[in-house]
């Protein structure tokens, strides 16, 4: 066998496991490495931001300088060198396009490869997409149709220009700039992200979706998402993420804020498939994300559904502050780790209003030598009469070298509240696999069926297309890990 074909074979084998691992060759405009006030001023200037936005960033930066990278999560890694990161990277040419025809064809081709055709005519019906390539939003589709319904869906950069009053009012209102190390960093340097505003009484006519793609080896990705649903508004939002394979680690530190007013309903779904590193634990994305929503009004509802399969390290706790009376918070999660991946993920449900309800369904699957932790906090405030929480944390182990851990915390200051917590740990049983094999399914099919059964309560919360994708993703990720 010649050298070349050998390399190709290896390549093919590797990409079967992580099929999104290609890199797009386009030219970048980059800032020098490292972070200081000048860099932040330059980002803000480049984006032609108003003064208040710059102040927000500078304030966050000064907070960040005083903060320490957290080490309480149950993960171990070499901390990033923040002086080596490129904090702003944009595909060369002017970033924002009036129409898709102006977008670099290489970028469009990348999204096609990912299975996300941006050309509207080819798109899945009823899904509007905002695509964020490295730091910059490259295309938002279906804008016109959404505008007719009164829905604003655009990049956060555009929102800062076109709807400054909304951004100013809500950005940082759920996750303050000094909330935590990574949120502060994001607040200082965020480059783009998605913005969505659904006005009073409007049911968003289609699913909204953002696809994040990290393409550049040395740039961090710091996107910022802000979703506001006014009184009685409804919106369902999907987020997908992929990255090429590099043998170094890339930092992804996003912030997502959700605001639901009276009777509003926000559903946020994520399928996270950042590059996890190779089977020896080299490379992969550090996924350090702060996501939080507030049910500001009465009877509001926020629901997080996440399928976390990628990243070398995941540190993320999509949370809900249940401020309005009778408001509802939900967290449905599947976190799968394999090889040397580490995940510390869960949620916080903060009950402040009366008769607030929360549900937590967490399914952790660990294979290889990975470590998978659920960390959750259910907090019941003094005034939260009749608050109720129900939590289920199930872990499944595949093989004997991985770990599953649960850290459920409950703090209740109201004795009319009820908090229920159930946890199970199971191993995929030889007898289960044998039973299914006896019915003609091969071992991989058997495992995939068992895993999908295990995750069913979460998958049924996902929109159809995402559920199908998630199911396939888990099978691919577990290929060859049992036996």
């Amino acid at each position, binding site marked *: 066998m010649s050298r070349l074909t050998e390399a190709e074979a290896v390549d093919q084998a590797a990409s079967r496991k992580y099929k999104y691992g290609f890199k797009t060759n386009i030219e970048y405009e980059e800032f020098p490495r490292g972070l200081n006030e000048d860099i932040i001023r330059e980002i803000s200037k480049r984006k032609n931001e108003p003064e208040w936005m710059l102040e927000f960033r500078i304030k966050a930066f000064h907070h960040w300088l005083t903060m320490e990278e957290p080490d309480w999560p149950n993960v171990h890694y070499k901390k990033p060198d923040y002086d080596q990161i490129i904090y702003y990277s944009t595909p060369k040419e002017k970033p924002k396009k009036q129409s898709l025809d102006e977008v670099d064809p290489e970028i469009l081709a990348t999204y096609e490869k990912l299975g996300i055709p941006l050309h509207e005519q080819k798109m899945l019906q009823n899904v509007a997409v905002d695509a964020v390539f490295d730091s910059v939003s490259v295309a938002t589709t279906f804008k016109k149709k959404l505008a007719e319904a009164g829905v604003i869906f655009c990049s956060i950069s555009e929102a800062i220009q076109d709807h400054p009053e909304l951004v100013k009012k809500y950005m940082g209102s759920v996750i303050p700039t000094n909330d935590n190390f990574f949120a502060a960093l994001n607040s200082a340097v965020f480059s783009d992200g998605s913005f969505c505003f659904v006005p009073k009484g409007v049911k968003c006519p289609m699913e909204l979706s953002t696809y994040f793609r990290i393409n550049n080896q040395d740039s961090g990705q710091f996107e910022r998402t802000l979703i506001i649903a006014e009184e009685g508004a409804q919106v369902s939002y999907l987020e997908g993420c992929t990255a090429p394979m590099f043998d170094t680690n890339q930092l992804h530190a996003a912030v997502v804020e959700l605001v639901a007013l009276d009777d509003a309903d926000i559903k946020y779904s994520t399928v996270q498939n950042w590059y996890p590193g190779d089977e020896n634990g080299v490379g992969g994305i550090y996924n350090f994300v702060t996501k939080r929503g507030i049910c500001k009004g009465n009877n509001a509802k926020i629901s997080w559904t996440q399928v976390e399969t990628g990243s070398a390290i995941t540190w993320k706790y999509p949370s809900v502050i249940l401020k309005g009376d009778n408001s509802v918070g939900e967290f449905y999660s599947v976190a799968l780790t394999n090889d040397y991946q580490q995940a510390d993920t869960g949620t916080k449900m903060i009950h402040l209003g009366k008769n607030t309800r929360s549900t937590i369904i967490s399914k952790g699957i660990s294979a290889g030598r990975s470590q998978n932790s659920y960390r959750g906090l259910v907090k019941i405030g003094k005034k939260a009469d009749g608050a109720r929480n129900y939590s289920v944390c199930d872990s499944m182990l595949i093989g004997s070298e991985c770990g599953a851990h649960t850290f459920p915390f409950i703090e209740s200051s109201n004795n009319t509240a009820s908090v229920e917590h159930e946890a199970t740990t199971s191993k995929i049983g030889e007898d289960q696999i*044998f039973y299914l*094999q006896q019915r003609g399914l091969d071992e991989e099919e058997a495992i995939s*069926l068992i895993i999908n059964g295990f995750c069913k309560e979460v998958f049924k919360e996902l929109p159809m297309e995402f559920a199908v994708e998630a199911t396939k993703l888990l099978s691919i990720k577990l290929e060859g890990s049992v036996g």
Partner: protein
Amino acid sequence: MLKIINLHAKVEGEKTEILKGINLEINQGEVHAIMGPNGSGKSTLAKVIAGHPAYEVTDGQILFNGEDILEMDPDERARMGMFLAFQYPVEVPGVSNSMLIRQAVNAVKKARGEEELDPLEFEDFIAEKLKLVEMDEKFLDRSVNAGFSGGEKKRNEILQLAAMNPKLSLLDETDSGLDIDALRIVSEGINSLRSEENAFLLVTHYQRILNYIKPDKVHVLMQGRIVRSGDSSLALELEDQGYDWLVTETHVNGEA
């Protein structure tokens, strides 16, 4: 169809043999019954034939349609037309019964190079099979065996058997736990599946099921060996006298 020659098997990693030289031949169109006391190795035999990874075959051969199957995975054997109805059917939470059965049926169809059933075709297909075992269609939407009563689990095994239409069916105590009506229904179901092309091996403790499904041969398994084979009248004798007389007659206890 099935030929077992001097089969020895033990639990993987353990020393003591459970099966100590089994010889058995089942031809097309035949029904055989295996009886024997608790712990004698009946389920082990069935599982070893089906390829359960917990057991190691230390000697002997198993030929299925003339092919040595000992190196084959359980799913390959299943796709060749071997079916095991479990003594203790396994629960698979979150996986609907219909989903499993459709995948199972299609796995076999695919192996045979036949067209797979789409969900709609499957609905019609399985409706027929449900009738055969008089099962309510609500069982299709429930998770595989999860929360099923003992009898429901057994009936579900026969539903799967009917759907997969295997060449060789190994039924491990399918009759245990079935009420009188269910036993009749399941037995009639099995009888209607019998043909000149397939064969059945019934593991049972009771003569009752053999009144419905008349065996061509009855074997008695004790301490890992077949100590006696005969026609269906042997089952009646056992029902009458138990196993003790066989012990003294064959001196199996002498070496145990």
